[in-house]
């Protein structure tokens, strides 16, 4: 059957026993991905973006070939999400995706008739190739594998030899079933129910923009200097940035001086693949909600660093993660819940999302880490970008990725006022880290 896929013919069988080691025609949506189609509205869906900026002008024809080959190799992303009666499901599409020109407002909801029905799109502007993915298909790491593979395949088309494949896929190989697995479901072994006790978090206020407007502010930092500052405090880069971000948000709330102070909570997605040695390209992240409660007293920057550092240490051990994942999966295994029609599940999930999901954190900071690509590609790539789309609830979110000495921080904002990123980048400048800023603001 895998041979069929390569030749571009339609796959026919769907017997689970027979196709266990092959790419199936449809998949249950990942446990972690179920929330995304349920909470999507007619004008909004959770979409995020990873992009690569090359050093040379882009050869569109070669990029198109590379895209087609990459889509064949990675059916986890070259797919679409559809409605079933009881659940949503995901089906790999055997069509050819088409390159699109880039836009000023990235990460808008994809329409069903766009790009041959795929729930991802590749957009080109200048020397930059951007991949926008519907979150129900994959998380940042999964999409990043696709982007890196696309970049490698494109460079190969241009005649650059890439002998090793660390962190990327080889388009001459066949797709592997492990790349399609639902990590949450596979690795949950315990049945511990942990109660959610988090309170409503501090909410960043501002003038809401119309749904099709989004403000992007990009800060480019020298990686080595950030690393040095973080080392001084014995922190990782994620902990260091989260600490500063949390401190900045805490100070913003202090300045507002509200009658009732809310906890300042940052949602930090953690890639679970290294913990479980998983190769999946779909959703396999765990959200740590780290932060402080200003009602406990005044916090200094160092106290916040410590708080976040120990929270990471506490949350990221295998036993704790096992328990958390099991909790996420238990609802899905409940036989009564399973036979509730999808539309009713949607309403319930929307309700949960509104009152316990996103309202429990002030903002998201998603760090993809340092881009891991074969050394042969280094000379041809200028930088990588990672960007979240507008969130339905929180007004400001932030995504980080590093490559060589460029640490790129993208702020996504659904409100007019840029006060959060201003405070954040000014704080970095105050600490002696030089910051270069660009944005998607329109020029007259």
């Amino acid at each position, binding site marked *: 059957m895998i041979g069929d896929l390569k030749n571009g013919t339609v796959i026919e069988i769907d017997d689970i026993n027979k196709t266990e080691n092959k790419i199936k025609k449809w998949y249950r949506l990942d446990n972690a991905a179920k929330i995304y189609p349920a909470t999507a509205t007619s*004008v909004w869906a959770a979409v995020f973006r990873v992009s690569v900026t090359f050093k040379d002008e882009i050869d569109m024809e070669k990029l198109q070939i590379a895209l087609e080959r990459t889509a064949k190799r990675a059916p986890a992303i070259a797919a679409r999400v559809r409605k079933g009666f009881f659940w949503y499901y995901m089906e790999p599409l055997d069509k050819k995706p088409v390159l699109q*020109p880039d836009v000023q407002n990235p990460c808008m909801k994809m*329409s069903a008739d766009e790009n041959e029905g795929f729930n991802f799109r590749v957009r080109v502007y200048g020397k930059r190739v951007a991949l926008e993915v519907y979150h129900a298909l994959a998380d940042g790491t999964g999409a990043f594998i696709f982007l890196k593979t696309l970049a490698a395949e494109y460079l190969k088309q241009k005649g650059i030899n890439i002998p090793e494949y660390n962190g990327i896929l080889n388009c001459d190989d066949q797709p592997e079933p492990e790349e399609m697995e639902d990590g949450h479901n596979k690795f949950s072994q315990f049945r511990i129910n942990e109660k959610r006790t988090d309170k409503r978090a501090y909410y960043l206020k501002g003038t809401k923009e119309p*749904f099709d407007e989004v403000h992007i502010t990009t800060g480019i930092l020298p990686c080595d200097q950030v690393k040095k500052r973080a080392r001084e405090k014995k922190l990782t880069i994620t902990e260091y940035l989260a600490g500063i971000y949390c401190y900045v948000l805490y100070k913003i709330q202090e300045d507002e001086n509200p009658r009732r102070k809310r906890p300042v909570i940052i949602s930090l997605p953690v890639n679970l693949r290294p913990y479980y040695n998983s190769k999946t390209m779909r959703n396999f992240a765990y959200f740590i909600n780290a932060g402080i409660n200003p009602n406990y007293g005044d916090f200094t920057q160092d106290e916040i660093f410590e708080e976040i550092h120990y929270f990471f240490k506490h949350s990221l051990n295998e036993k704790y993660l096992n328990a958390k994942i099991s909790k996420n999966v238990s609802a899905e295994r409940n036989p009564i819940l399973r036979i509730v029609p999808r539309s009713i599940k949607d309403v319930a999930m929307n309700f949960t999302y509104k009152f316990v999901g996103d309202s429990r954190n002030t903002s998201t900071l998603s760090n993809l880490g340092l881009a891991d690509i074969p050394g042969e590609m280094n000379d041809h790539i200028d930088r990588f970008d990672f960007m979240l789309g507008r969130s339905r609830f929180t007004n400001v979110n932030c995504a980080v990725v590093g490559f060589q000495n460029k640490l790129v921080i993208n702020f996504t904002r659904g409100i007019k006022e840029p006060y959060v990123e201003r405070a954040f980048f000014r704080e970095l400048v105050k600490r002696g880290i030089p*910051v270069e*800023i660009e*944005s998607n603001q329109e020029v007259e």
Partner: protein
Amino acid sequence: MSYCVNCGVKLAESEKSCPLCHCPVVNPMDSECSPEKLEHPYPKRRDTIKNIIDRKFIISVMSIIYLLPIVICIAVDTLLRGRMTWSVISTVSVVLCWVIVFLPYLLDKELAMFYTSIDLIVLVGLFFSIAWYVGNYRWVWGIAIPTAILAYVIINVTVYGVSRGFLHNLYTGAFVLGATGIFCVILEVLIWNYIRRFLDPARNFEYWSAYVFISCIIIAGLLCYIERKKTLKRGLEKRFHI
């Protein structure tokens, strides 16, 4: 290459003002570089999202569901009686429900005056269909239409007052209360007048609306007073906060 004097960040050459503080970039050395030639990080082209299709689809599905009782009622009525009788009333009622619920959703604009006018017209139509069925038009002219028009006026004046800022906070509540009081008085006059003319010429005026009116006016006056006295309002908030 420029730095924002406010934020201390380096700005990409494409930025004509600092994206963080909107402080304009002034760099006298940059004059030879024309802004058109600069490569901006994002193009001008924008993504548009189609929203209309969804809305129309929902409306059409719901309209079909609304059509069902109309069709069934008319069919049953004409089968049993040979012509439309009571089914006229049910048809107009369903149309009224549709107009109230779906018209604002369909147009998706804030046109309170327009929506309430249509609602009023269909409501009057419902009155006449009932009157036609029972063969008595007097209550329509005597009570139903004046009451509906009065409610229409009160709703629209309130909406207008709020949208223009004449009414705000507790004043809105005071106005609605006052209008309710007046509404009750006029309603009693209308009912009393109707009973005297058509049912019982010796009927006395009962003054029940006076109790409603007086209590409404007192509470409305209190609300206005509280709204005017900021310190009192704060004190009340302090003692009665939930």
